[in-house]
C-alpha cells in the first residue's frame, strides 16, 4: 500500500455555489459571483467595492442551520462546508477507534467585530453611544460590558474544534493556523504532514472568511489593493487581463477530508479526488505586501522536488491570480522561469476571476477546483480574461479545456511574505461525477 495522502471529501460555500457541484458548474460556465456591494458607500475612496458575495438563499440556509448566539458567522460557514465534506467522504461510517483525527483550519476574523456592513454600522453606533456617555474610562467600560453577551470574537476563542470532535466521535489534534492568504494551502500541507507522521489517519481541513465591512474596505483601500474597475461588476476580478485594476474580496468557506490512502482503502473509499504530491513553503522578508518572482519560483520548485516531479510533468497551473497588477505579472514571470517555452501550451486557470479573493479560504476552495480538474478532465476557463496581458503571457481560455489532466500545480501567496505551492496528482481511481438524479 502506498504512503499517499488522498482527498476523499469536499465541501464549499462560495459566491458561485453553496455546494461542490453547483460551484464546479459555475466555474465551467464562467458564471461570476462578483457584484457591486450596494450597502457600502464608497464615495471618496481610491477603490470601489465589488465583492464576491454568497447568494442570499445560501446564506439564509447556513444561518438557519448553523447560526447560534455563541458561534461566529465564520464558524457557521466552516461547519456548513465541513458537513458537506464529511458527508461526501462518508465519514459517518467510520469506526471510532480510527481516531484521533487531525483538524487544521484557518478562520479569518472580520476585524473589530461584525461580519456584514449593517452589523458594523450598528456596532459603531453602540460604541459611539458608549464613548459619548463614559469615554474609555476602564471601570466604566467594564460596568457597561457586564451582563452583555460578548461573542466568541471578543476572546478570539471558539468551540469549533470541540464541535468537530462531536461530529467525528473522536478526539482531534487541532491546528488553528494563520498564514495570511496562503493559509488554506498551508493548512492542507499541515494536515498532510500530520497524516504522514502517523499521528492521525484522516484529517479535516477547513477555512472561512467573511469580512465584508466598512473597516476592511477602508484598510484594503489604504493598501491600494482593491479593484477600481468601473465597468460591469462581474468582470471586476480579471486575473492576467491587461485591464486588471486590483483584487475583489469575497466571503467563502471550504472544507476537505484528507486520509492516508491505506485508511481510505480500508473503509472502502477506493475513489479519491486527488493525491497530495508535494508542497513548498517559504517566507520572504524583503517586503510586507509585494510578491517576489524568486520566492514564487522557489516554492513551486520545492513542491515539484518533494513530489519527485519535473516541470514537464505539470499538466496545468491553478494560479493564485488575484487580479492585482503586481501579483499577476510577478506570478507569471515565476511561471515563465519554471516552465520556459512550455508556457505557450500550458493552460492556467484562476478561480478568483469568478469568486473574488477569499484570503485563507481561497486555498481550500481552489483546491476543490484543482481536484475536479483532474477527476473530470476539464480545465476551467478564466472567463474575465478577455484581453490577456502580454506582460503576463499566460495561456488562459475563455471556454473549458477538455483533456486528460494528471497533475495540477496550485499556488497561494499572501501579505507578510507568505508563499505556498502544492502539486496534486490524479488518483489511480478518480472520483466520478455524480449521476444525474
Amino acid at each position: 500500500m502506498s504512503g499517499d495522502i488522498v482527498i476523499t471529501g469536499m465541501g464549499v460555500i462560495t459566491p458561485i455555489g453553496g455546494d461542490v457541484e453547483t460551484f464546479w458548474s459555475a466555474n465551467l460556465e464562467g458564471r461570476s459571483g462578483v457584484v457591486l456591494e450596494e450597502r457600502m458607500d464608497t464615495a471618496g475612496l481610491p477603490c470601489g467595492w465589488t465583492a464576491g458575495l454568497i447568494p442570499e438563499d445560501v446564506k439564509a440556509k447556513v444561518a438557519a442551520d448553523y447560526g447560534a448566539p455563541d458561534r461566529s458567522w465564520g464558524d457557521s460557514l466552516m461547519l456548513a462546508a465541513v458537513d458537506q465534506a464529511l458527508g461526501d467522504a462518508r465519514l459517518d461510517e467510520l469506526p471510532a477507534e480510527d481516531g484521533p483525527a487531525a483538524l487544521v483550519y484557518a478562520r479569518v476574523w472580520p476585524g473589530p467585530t461584525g461580519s456584514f456592513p449593517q452589523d458594523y454600522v450598528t456596532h459603531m453606533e453602540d460604541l459611539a453611544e458608549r464613548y459619548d456617555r463614559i469615554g474609555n474610562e476602564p471601570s466604566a467600560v467594564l460596568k457597561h460590558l457586564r451582563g452583555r453577551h460578548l461573542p466568541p470574537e471578543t476572546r478570539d476563542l471558539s468551540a469549533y474544534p470541540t464541535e468537530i470532535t462531536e461530529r467525528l466521535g473522536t478526539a482531534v489534534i487541532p491546528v488553528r493556523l494563520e498564514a495570511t492568504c496562503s493559509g488554506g494551502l498551508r493548512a492542507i500541507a499541515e494536515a498532510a504532514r500530520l497524516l504522514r507522521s502517523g499521528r492521525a489517519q484522516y484529517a479535516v481541513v477547513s477555512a472561512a472568511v467573511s469580512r465584508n465591512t466598512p473597516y476592511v474596505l477602508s484598510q484594503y483601500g489604504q493598501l491600494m489593493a482593491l479593484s477600481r474597475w468601473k465597468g460591469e461588476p462581474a468582470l471586476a476580478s480579471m486575473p492576467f487581463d491587461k485591464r486588471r485594476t486590483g483584487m475583489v474580496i469575497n466571503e467563502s468557506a471550504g472544507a476537505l477530508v484528507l486520509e492516508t490512502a491505506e485508511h481510505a482503502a480500508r473503509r472502502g473509499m477506493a475513489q479519491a479526488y486527488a493525491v497530495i504530491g508535494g508542497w513548498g513553503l517559504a517566507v520572504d522578508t524583503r517586503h510586507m505586501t509585494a510578491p517576489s518572482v524568486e520566492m514564487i519560483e522557489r516554492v513551486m520548485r520545492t513542491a515539484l522536488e518533494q513530489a519527485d516531479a519535473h516541470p514537464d510533468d505539470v499538466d496545468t497551473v491553478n494560479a493564485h491570480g488575484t487580479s492585482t497588477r503586481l501579483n499577476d505579472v510577478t506570478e507569471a514571470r515565476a511561471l515563465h522561469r519554471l516552465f520556459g517555452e512550455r508556457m505557450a501550451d500550458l493552460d492556467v486557470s484562476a478561480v478568483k476571476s469568478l469568486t473574488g479573493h477569499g484570503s485563507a479560504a481561497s486555498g481550500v476552495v481552489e483546491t476543490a477546483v484543482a481536484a475536479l480538474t483532474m477527476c473530470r478532465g476539464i480545465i476551467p476557463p478564466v472567463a474575465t480574461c478577455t484581453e490577456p496581458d502580454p506582460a503576463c503571457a499566460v495561456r488562459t481560455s475563455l471556454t473549458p479545456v477538455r483533456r486528460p489532466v494528471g497533475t495540477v500545480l496550485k499556488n497561494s501567496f499572501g501579505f507578510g511574505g507568505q508563499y505556498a505551492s502544492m502539486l496534486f496528482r490524479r488518483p489511480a481511481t478518480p472520483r466520478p461525477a455524480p449521476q444525474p438524479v
Partner: protein
Amino acid sequence: MPSERGGRQDRPDIVVTGIGVISPAGIGAARLWEAMAAGKTFFDTGGNDGPAPALPWPSAAVDTTEITWPAGRDWANAGKYANQSARWAVAVARQALEQAGITGDTEDVRGGTVMAVGSSSDELSDVIPQLASRFRNDPRPLAKFLHDEVPDYSYIRGIPSQLGQFVSMASGFRGSNVAAYGEAAAGGTGALALAVRLLESGELDRMLVVGVGAPLTITAMAAFDQDEPLGTRATAGAGPFDADRSGTLVGQGAAAVLLERADTARGTARARLAGCEVLVAADVAASARLVVDSVLADADTTPTMWWAHGAGSPLLDRVETLAVLPRVGSLPVTGSKGTIGNAFECSALIDTALVVESLGRGELPPVGLLRRPDPGLGGLDPVMGETRPLSPAPMALVTAFNQGHHSTAAGAIVIASTHGAATGDGKVRT
C-alpha cells in the same frame, strides 16, 4: 487506537538550543526563575493587597522600557508594520537566537518560525470608540471616514503571522512562517507541536517558536470573566492549587523556544523535547487525560517532575490535577502563574523556557501565592516556600490549557535533560 507512528528510535531527536523570556520579572528566563525562587510576585494591586484601582482584577504587566527594536534601515522601515506584540516577539526571539549563536545575518532556508499570538488588534480598542463618536458628526461615508482616520497599517499590524515575518528577519529563517494559536493552541503548545512535526518530517532543521501574551483589552477580560470569574486577589492563598484560590490571575509576557534537529543543530542542546501534542475531546478533562497519555507514550518515558498549567481557576486546577495525577503518581509540581499570571497565548512557552532553566539549575522553584494546598486535589506534592532539588536524569511533564469555557483543548509537553551536544548519530544522550 491503531497507530502507524514509528517508535521513538525511528524519529530524530529534537533539542532546545535557545530560550527567551520577557515577563513581569524582566528580561530573560533566569530573572523570572530567580524571582520565583525568591517567592516574588508581580501583580499590580494598586499598591495594596486589594484590587487594582481601575479594574477588579490584579494583573502582572511587562515593563516595556527594556524592550528594544533592532537598529538599521531595514528595521526602521519595517517598524511601521510592527505593533507592541511584534516588538516583544523580536526582542524575545533574539534572546533565544543569541544563545544558539545565530546572528540572523545569513539566509537559512532550513529554518522556520511559528508564532503563538492572537489577532492582536488591541491597538484599536481605545481608538475605534473615539472614532465612532466623531463619526456621528462627520459628513464622510463610514468607509471613507475609517480610511482617513484609522491609523495607517493597523490592519497589517494586527495579523498574527505578521509578527513572524519580523522574527524571520531577526533569525534569517526563510523556510516557513505560520501562526498557530487560539482555541487549538493550549497556551502555545500547538505552536510547539507544529514545529516538532516540521522538524521530525525532515522538512526543516530548526524552528523558532515565539509566543506573545499581550495586554488584554477590557472587553476580552470581561468576556473571560463571564466564562469563569477571574481572580480578584493577588495575596498569599490566591495562587494555583491553593484551597482559597478564587480565579485565574492575568499576566503578560513573551517567550521564544528554539528547537533544532539534534543531527543538524547549530546550537548546543540545553534540553531534549521528547513529546508534544494538543488534543481536543468532548470536554477538557477528557482532553487532558488523552493528551497526557499520548505524549508519555510518544516519549516512551515516565516523568519525574510536573510543571503544571496551574491557572488558579477553581475548576481548571481540579480538572488538571484529577487528569494528571492518576497517570504520573505523586510528583513534585510547580507552576509560574502564581508569580506572573496567565500570559494566555504564550504561557506554555514561558513554562517550557522555565523547565529548561530548571533542568540547567537542577532545582524547581516554588509555586507563587500558594499557602495551603487544596486537599481536594488528591496527592498533590507542590513545591512550596523554597526550591527543591531535581532527581537525577530529570524528565519534566508540562501541561497547558486555554482559558474560558469555549475551548476544551489540552496540551502536554515532555522535556528531558541533556548532557552536552548531539552525538554523531543525532541522538542526544541523557
